[in-house]
């Protein structure tokens, strides 16, 4: 009965997607070419849709010191605050780099134990007060002292935040922390609030109507529903932003968002992950579909601390029973590349192959399962379209190898409980970030000290810590290659699809990260909102 209902639902969704794909006609015209868009134009308004389940939810407000969803609300935050640093890339997503934005420059000193930031002179918050080193120090101190989990994970020395001169601030660490600059775009400390406005409004009001020095200022804010912004006339970049008004509108998922774009009620949507809709949008040809270069591959975390995966043979059986290439081709038509380690093609230190990686070999998997006298596995994942599709496919593949598999789909809270209680066996999760040492990086899934890791191996901890600390990029690459091989050799966790969500923009809308490629910092790409523009209607 349940299967019948599932089939019915699947058919219904497919039918809707099919109907939606046909909506508005348009045929199979190619998506507009960003390069051929011509020079940017000033003016106009833009409504951006955000999925309420992720970027469209900002329940704790938009104060970087207290917002626990800052990682999901990168767009809203950057539009209001701008950011000390930003991740930029060439139009095709290559040559991605973190570059100073409101910061003018930085220097890593003392082998990465000290970082000195120079703030661009002449920047003012939209309330007219100066954004200088004092203001940045105030923000850093506030963030460090915040009880929010969004506070920075800096190994900060005592009194480690120092104002050197009106434009210079120094951070001193207890150990080398070379990844600090790359971590800024994924950290709430990247967004600097006006200390004066904060004091005048008080924290409760400030989270609703925050004041920064970014390209836009807040007009109105209904939490997790609608954020209306208007052009900041005192923005420090001359001629920017292009848009006069920018509205973030929360919406209940990919399907209604896609239809709202087709109906012309919004002009952009961030984070499309329903693959059939993505294909429909590509075929329909009335909007630009930008699939970002993926940075965080899926990984099947195996709990090596307890249960069946303490035995390396059980872990090897999972490696041998898993065929991610087949899943990538069969379910996603090759849209997402398969990775053998914790980096995706859009991320730093990506390596396509890991030497000696145990690939798909169903006979070997069967043999290992026989040796073990059978293998029963409970596989879980978070409730998300791609993850659930992959989990179902894995279940089928593993059963073919003689493994008994049960599956669970979790909400975030129940997933956390599973990890905290160590009552889990296998979890399909994403690992890594653009820089493996920043944000929810690789250590989150593989470090002994992380509650969300299935591995407790001091040798791996050392490799990952060294890689995060090293200033020399070539040495970092070598250490990450070594760590990837170590994970593979010990069969700690097979890696899979490197998935990244897509952005949709209607005709005439252009902008870096929206219609050009920028690797996702963690989940969504950091759209550079000050450079987004709309062509005037012909």
């Amino acid at each position, binding site marked *: 009965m349940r299967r019948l209902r599932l089939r019915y639902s699947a058919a*219904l969704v497919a039918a*809707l997607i099919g*109907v*939606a794909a046909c*909506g*508005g006609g348009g045929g199979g015209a190619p998506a507009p070419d960003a390069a051929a868009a011509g020079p940017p134009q000033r003016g106009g308004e833009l409504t951006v*849709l955000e999925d*309420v*389940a992720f970027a469209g*939810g900002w*329940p*704790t*407000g938009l104060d970087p010191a207290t917002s*626990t*969803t800052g990682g999901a609300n990168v767009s809203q935050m950057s539009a209001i605050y701008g950011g000390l640093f930003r991740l930029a890339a060439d139009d095709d997503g290559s040559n991605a780099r973190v570059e100073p934005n409101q910061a003018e420059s930085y220097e890593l000193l003392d082998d990465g134990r000290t970082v000195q930031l120079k703030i661009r002179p002449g920047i003012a918050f939209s309330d007219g007060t100066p954004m200088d080193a004092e203001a940045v120090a105030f923000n850093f101190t506030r963030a460090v002292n915040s*009880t*929010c*989990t969004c506070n920075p994970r800096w190994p900060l020395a005592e009194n480690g935040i120092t104002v050197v001169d009106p434009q210079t601030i120094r951070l001193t660490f207890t150990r080398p922390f070379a990844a600090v600059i790359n971590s800024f775009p994924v950290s709430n400390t990247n967004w600097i609030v006006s200390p004066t406005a904060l004091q005048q409004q008080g924290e*409760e009001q400030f*989270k*609703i109507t925050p004041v920064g020095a970014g390209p836009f200022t807040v007009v109105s804010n*209904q*939490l*997790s*529903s*609608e954020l209306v912004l208007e052009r900041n006339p005192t923005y420090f970049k001359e001629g920017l932003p292009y848009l006069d008004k920018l509205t973030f*509108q*929360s*919406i*209940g*998922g990919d*399907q*209604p968002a896609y*239809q*709202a774009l*087709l*109906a*012309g*009620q*919004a002009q952009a949507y961030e984070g499309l992950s329903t693959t059939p809709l993505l294909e429909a949008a590509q075929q329909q040809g009335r909007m630009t579909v930008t699939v970002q270069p993926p940075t965080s591959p899926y990984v099947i975390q195996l709990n090596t601390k307890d249960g069946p995966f303490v035995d390396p043979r059980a872990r090897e059986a999972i490696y041998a029973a898993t065929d991610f290439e087949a899943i990538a081709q069969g379910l996603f038509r090759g849209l997402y590349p398969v990775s053998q380690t914790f980096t995706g093609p859009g991320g730093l230190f990506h390596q396509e192959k890991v030497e000696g990686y145990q690939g798909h070999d169903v006979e070997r998997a069967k043999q290992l399962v026989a040796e073990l006298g059978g293998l029963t596995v409970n596989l879980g994942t978070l409730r998300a379209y791609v993850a659930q599709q992959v989990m179902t496919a894995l279940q089928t593949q593993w059963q073919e190898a003689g493994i008994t598999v049960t599956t669970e789909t979790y*909400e*975030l*809270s*129940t*997933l*956390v*409980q599973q*990890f*905290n209680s160590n009552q889990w066996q296998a979890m399909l999760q994403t690992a890594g970030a653009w820089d493996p040492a920043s944000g*929810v990086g690789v250590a*989150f899934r593989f470090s002994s000290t992380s*509650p*969300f890791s299935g591995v407790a191996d001091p040798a791996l901890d050392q490799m990952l810590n060294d890689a995060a600390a090293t200033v020399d990029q070539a040495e970092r690459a070598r250490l990450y290659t070594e760590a990837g091989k170590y994970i593979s050799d010990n069969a700690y966790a097979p890696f899979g699809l490197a998935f990244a969500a897509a952005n949709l923009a209607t005709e005439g809308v252009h902008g870096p990260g929206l219609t050009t490629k920028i690797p996702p910092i963690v989940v969504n790409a950091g759209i550079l909102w000050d450079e987004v523009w709309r062509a005037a209607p012909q």
Partner: protein
Amino acid sequence: MTVATRPGADADRAPGRLAALLASPGARLVGKRLLMAVPILLGVSVLTFWVLNLIPGNAAQQLLGPEATPEQVRTLEQQLGLDQPGYVRYLGWLGSAVTGDLGTSLVSGQPVTSQIGERLAVSGELVGLAFVVSLGLAIPVALLAAYKPGRMFDRVSMLVSITGLSVANYVLALLLVLLFAVELALFPAIGFVPLSESVAGNLHSMALPVAAIAFPLFCFYTRFLRGDLVDQLQGEDYVTTARAKGIGPGQVLLRHAFRNSSFGLITVVGLNLGTLIGGTVIVEQIFALPGIGQLMLQAINTRDFVVVQACVLVFAIVAVLANLLADLLYAVLDPRIRYGSR
């Protein structure tokens, strides 16, 4: 002839009128039902609180996210008062709620009463318009279908009704957007224009959400009323008597059968009115309407129990009031019904 009236006689009579009004059967009914509502609302709030406590995770965990250490979670639980025993939290909440203060959101730190107030207006308008539209269409269609059952109009209305009842409202909502927003560009697919901004703009923005809720209701009411009318017309003695008196079929239908059938319809509408305001969640999500359903869904996802509790309480109050209204309407429709008379 002049009738002399003593100065101040009206004022003297006023307390007497008030006493008479309070002693009237209608007032007694209202008073009795409102008194009965107290244990109902208390029961609902206790049940909601208990169920919410059974849901895994809490606001502290949700607020802090997966990276939080158990110590951080414990600290925030203390700050939010989530470490206190359930009954202490409940009584604290209840103490404030009876004074009209529904507390402060655990997640946003904003007063819940004002959050609900803003959003209740949107959901209230959505549901109110949906009822007006669905009843406004269902009653004439059902009357016409029952007038000559089995004929073409009846068959077509039955087909439409069954189709409408078979389609989930989220599917209907998406199809409506596809047809009326994407293809025909007649109505907006998302967004809400407040009444204070523009009445026409407001109605324009509410058209598709109202249709998504109203259409299944229209189908249900049409089938329900048409069936009851046909039963009345075919099997009741009073109809035979009316016909024997020479009253025309139209008059029998309108003045006799419809009047009797409307009791059932009122009961159903009353029950729907109480539950539908909480059932607008999906439609509000699809059309990006800032209503109470959207607020409650977000609150459930973030385990913001204070907001969920307040939303459920509001739904319960609406349900109680809707049923009370239905009871009062019975008395209006049938003078023989005298609640509370001995």
